[in-house]
């Protein structure tokens, strides 16, 4: 099946590709889900071997890992950059080795890459903002819980999206939690508790991802405000989808599925290796997930 005459034939010459995956950090369900999705898709293809690395959150280690991969003569590199904003020197070294590089989820701010596949975070934010605006027709306070740290543009793009819609509504007040939820449920819980102490009259809360929303939901339940405060998140994490389906106060999320992005990323790398002309940036649509359509996004075999 593989086309041996393709311009970028596999290095081993046997029609099999080896693709290196450089994860900036795997220690989060989204990122490990992404890594698994890439591997699963490679298995599905049959002619792709995956070498996966984890930099454990250390940018220098990411650089070394990429060099490791290049020294193993991989055909292409996929970077799942997580909270890393960019790595121009790393991209340079891949370019110098003449290999294509595909970015998944995280689009680096600077440096040259071959192709990127990921969500439009600002759009997800806007979508959530519009949903909340609909639900809060009578206005009210909306809390915002950010993941942090401050240099994380994925999160701030989402929050900016929400704000761009809601700040235009005169009857809606935004309250941003001063501290970060660190993208986890425990952080979401404590930040929400503090927020509830200062702004008990909130009508809704938006979190930059589902994990934090799930924690926030418990804080709201503990405070006995389940009927008062609605929740909007991002990602489509399994537990969040379930909460939405179950008809709780968790009403909406914007799909940012690691399974889909990972699979597309692998496909994209293979296409490039096959010599295809590909789109440079591909935005994966992030449908609004509510009670009505949640079931269709629930993937029992998914890794996220």
């Amino acid at each position, binding site marked *: 099946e593989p086309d041996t005459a393709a311009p970028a034939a596999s290095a081993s010459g046997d029609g099999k590709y080896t693709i290196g995956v450089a994860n900036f950090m795997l220690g989060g*369900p989204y990122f490990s*889900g992404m890594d698994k999705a890439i591997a699963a898709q490679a298995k599905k293809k049959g002619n792709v071997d995956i070498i996966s690395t984890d930099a454990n959150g250390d940018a220098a280690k990411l650089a070394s890992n990429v060099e490791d991969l290049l020294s193993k003569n991989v055909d292409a590199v996929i970077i799942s950059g997580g909270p890393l904003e960019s790595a121009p020197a790393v991209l340079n070294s891949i370019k110098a080795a003449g290999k294509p590089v595909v970015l998944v989820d995280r689009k680096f701010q600077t440096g040259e890459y071959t192709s990127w596949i990921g969500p439009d975070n600002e759009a997800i934010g806007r979508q959530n903002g519009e949903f909340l605006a609909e639900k809060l027709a009578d206005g009210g306070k909306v809390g915002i819980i950010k993941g942090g740290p401050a240099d994380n543009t994925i999160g701030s793009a989402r929050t900016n999206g929400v704000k761009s819609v809601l700040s235009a509504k005169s009857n809606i007040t935004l309250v941003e939690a001063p501290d970060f939820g660190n993208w986890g*449920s425990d952080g979401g819980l404590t930040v929400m508790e503090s927020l*509830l*102490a200062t702004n008990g009259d909130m009508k809704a809360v938006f979190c930059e991802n589902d*994990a934090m929303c799930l924690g926030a939901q*418990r804080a709201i339940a503990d405070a006995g405000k389940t009927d008062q405060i609605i929740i909007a998140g991002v990602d489509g994490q*399994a537990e969040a989808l379930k909460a939405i389906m179950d008809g709780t106060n968790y009403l909406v999320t914007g799909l940012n599925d690691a399974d889909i992005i990972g699979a597309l990323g692998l496909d994209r790398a293979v296409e490039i290796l096959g010599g295809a002309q590909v789109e440079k940036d591909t935005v994966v649509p992030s449908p609004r997930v509510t009670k009505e359509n949640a079931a269709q996004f629930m993937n029992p075999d998914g890794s996220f």
Partner: protein
Amino acid sequence: MTGHIARIRMTRLVVGGRDVTVTAAFVTLIVLLVAVAAVTSDTFLTQTNLTNLLKQMVTTGLLAFGMLVVILTGGIDLSVGSVVAFSGILTAGLVADLPIPVAMLAGLLAGVGFGLINGTLVSRFGLASFVVTLASLTTIRGLAFVYSEVPIAPEDPAFFTLGSAMAGPLPVSTLIMLAVFVAGGIFLTRTPAGRSIVAIGGNAETVRLAGINVPRHVTLAYTISGACAGLAGVILASRVGIAQPSVGVAFELDAIAACVIGGASLAGGRGSARATFGGVLVLVLINNLLNLYGVQSFWQQVLKGLIIIAVILVQRTNRVRG
């Protein structure tokens, strides 16, 4: 490396033959923090905020007590954050097959087990606690992810009880933490095992020569810390309702800070449950205040560090040299 400080002579407060200057300064500090908070923020004294405070103390409190016991022996336990993650995810994972209390007990016992291993490596093999627990921090975190890479959210709402139930105005989890401090205080001041642990931190060789089994007591100290971390992990998972393998990173730092703010010496042999509880209180109050004032996250970090320095500076100048 102590002892070369700019000497500041202070008037000392002596009550009933005991020098209580440090205690007095410390209580003053806490009262001051509370007073400032109450006056400048209209939220501080609300029921919700106070309940929050009580709940937010639980994890740091439990870890700090366990850490204190280890610090008293002259050691340190860096692995507690990873133990929190492991015992939480283990409990949440077991809930599918076992009754909730049994699953929770298993989580706690996992902490005990890790503590035993840490303690044995330190006491029987004479390894430095810092490295042993640094290594186990890494290994146990890895194990938590190996057990489950993704968060586990038990369906049964009874799983939330431990973390969110209230006993009157007080959260049950806070009561548990307080009980640990009270029992732990008695243990440290009034039982032979507790006294041995304190003495070991002062001079292990002397304790050995006094015929006391030093390795056994050191192991006990790490086991207590492991148990506290296990308990903290179970309570945290129950409170959040979801157990995550990534939870608890850097928790050890707050626990250590609480001990030191409470006047414990990292060289061992000095520290008390009561003062450590005070340290926990100070830390939680600082966090709470910075939030109530809406200080931005990274300025919070800047200030938190500076406040900690200020607090221990005050402590330092108030302490009689030994």
